[in-house]
């Protein structure tokens, strides 16, 4: 599925199928999913493609989170894939990991990426191969708490336009898995496994352009409403 430029999606709500209010199924913030970044063990699986002729900002956001500088983006100024995040050590520290061997032609062919966190280590896998491990101290900043994940942007609500990082992007898979960081297991993960928090293969899209969560959960993803797009 192609996410259009300046039309990002967000992973924010779960649909509570047992609760009906005023004739509607209630959707509510899924804070457990939104705050998964703070858990000790989890993985983010992300298969995407950004064609060279696609519309994008200088930093093309693959996925991100509201808060300061979190997410995966392709920086066309340095022609490299970048992962960035901030931690707290009395004052925030900015971590910027540059994957300079991943160029625009690689991104335009499509990339299968897995990011795992095992306590204070992020590990990065491309096509099943470990390409970087990164240790950090302290916890991620509180800005990342209780806020949605974005696909096709880093942070549409950022004050500085340079931090919004919109992109036109093709997704074929996005998934967050708790308590599993073995690449062998992640490569063949079953969407219905209990520790899969969400799983989007982008094959089931409904009439209002929501994308179905193929895990056992009801975390459908939807277009970010216009009022949240700066």
């Amino acid at each position, binding site marked *: 599925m192609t996410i259009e430029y300046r039309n990002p999606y967000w992973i924010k709500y779960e*649909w509570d199928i047992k609760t009906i209010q005023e*004739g*509607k*199924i209630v959707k509510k913030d899924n804070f457990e999913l939104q705050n998964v970044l703070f858990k000790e063990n989890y993985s983010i699986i992300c298969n995407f493609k950004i064609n060279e002729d696609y519309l994008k900002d200088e930093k093309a956001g693959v996925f991100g989170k509201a808060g300061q500088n979190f997410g995966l983006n392709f920086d066309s100024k340095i022609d490299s894939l970048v992962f960035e995040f901030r931690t707290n050590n009395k004052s925030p520290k900015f971590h910027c990991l540059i994957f300079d061997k991943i160029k625009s032609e690689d991104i335009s062919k499509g990339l299968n990426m897995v990011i795992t966190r095992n306590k204070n280590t992020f590990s990065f896998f491309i096509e099943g191969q470990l390409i970087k491990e990164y240790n950090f101290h302290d916890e991620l900043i509180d800005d990342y708490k209780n806020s949605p994940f974005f696909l096709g942007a880093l942070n549409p609500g950022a004050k500085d336009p340079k931090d919004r990082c919109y992109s036109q992007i093709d997704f074929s898979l996005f998934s967050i898995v708790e308590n599993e960081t073995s690449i062998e297991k992640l490569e063949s993960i079953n969407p219905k496994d209990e520790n899969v928090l969400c799983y989007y293969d982008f094959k089931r899209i409904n*009439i209002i352009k929501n994308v*179905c969560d193929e895990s*056992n959960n009801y975390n*459908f993803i939807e277009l970010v409403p216009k009022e949240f797009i700066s």
Partner: protein
Amino acid sequence: MNFNETKIKLDKIGCGFCLAKWTQVTMHLHNGMTHSCHHPAPHKVSLEELERNPTALHNSKTKKLARKEMLEGKRPSECQYCWNIEDNSTSFSDRVFKSSEPWSEPHFEDITNLHWREDYVPKYVEVSFSNVCNFKCVYCGPLYSSKWMEEINKHGGYDLPSMEYNGFDEIEKNKTKPYKHSEQNPYVDAFWDWWPKLYDNLDTFRITGGEPLLSKDFWGVLDNILSSNTPNKNLKLSINSNLGVDDVLINKLIDKIGKIIEEDRIKECIIYTSCDTYGGQAEYVRHGLNFETLFNNVEKILTKLDKVTVVVMSTFNIFSIFSYDKLIEKIYNLKVKHFNTKRYWNSPIILDTSYLRYPSFLSFRLLKDYVTKDYFENFEKYMIFNSSYRSLNFYQPQSIEDVGFSLKEIEKITRLKEYFESYEKDDKFYTDKRDFIDFTLKYDIRRNLNVNNTFPELKSFLNDN
């Protein structure tokens, strides 16, 4: 008025008082049976009674005695279905729901001022003129299908380990043998005598069968509506059809309904059809069905009659589960394709799922421990994802973004799941399973079918004796 208020009002007359005993009737004219709502078993109207009073099709002696009991503060035993709910739960029973309907509630005062012996013109009428039918669905029988009648005449009932299925004994014992379509039928004659008065007072008229499109009296009703100088513009017309009859009849239906609508002779028209799963598996269950023809005809109706809604009634049974997801998806695609803002109801097509209870050896509960509830969860999820998340029962769609399954359609699937989950195997389970396996062997031989080819998913179930 809300349901609580209705119950209080009814209970002031009596704890068993129900307006449907007056306002609602299902008349099985093909064998002279009648009941008000579907919960009490139908009873026979004798020809003697009919001759004295043609309206005995509804105002039978049996029913009048039940009305007397209700007016005297008693509970007729034939309505035990509702007393079970009222005595064992805090839920409202159908006594309250049906008495709250727009075809019941406004007539409360009139009915309570009537003497129990007086005749009453019903407002919600369902009628079957004949059992003539070109299908013989697995869960039907000779009472409602002439094709089944032919088979039983030729081969007898199905002699199963614990019972005889669809034999003639019950029919002969209860004297419920249908008149042939070609025979003079005094019940149908009585109906037509009563029709002028009935028609003027109707809220809802639903025609079932047999297959109505094969009944001359069905066409008589449509022609009557078309030729009336004073059409009942409040009439809600509902037509059951397997939509598996000849093209000539389908086109005739579309032409006549189209004209009735164009001339503003009714309030609404809804067409009910049936399908219990998808493709070849659906054809196995509803013998005579061609799945592609059915849905071609559904589409023809939805295209040419752009106000009409088609309701697909599904009798969910042991054969339904394996490809029900495909049926759900097909219904959704038709909701999207045929969406407009002119329909009488809020969707061009609706899936109405109920689970089969009789015969018990065809119940999907026999699959307990053979399949998991994953099937039902997948059905639910698909429908919720494609629901637009609101109760379309109360919302008229404004745009294509409103298209989706209503909460009611989803709730019916949830009921299947809950029934399946809560079911615990008992002795009847094993009896029914033996009957089922034996039945499929005999069914396949009689009808030249092969359950193993059609349902490879059932292979180990069928081999497990």
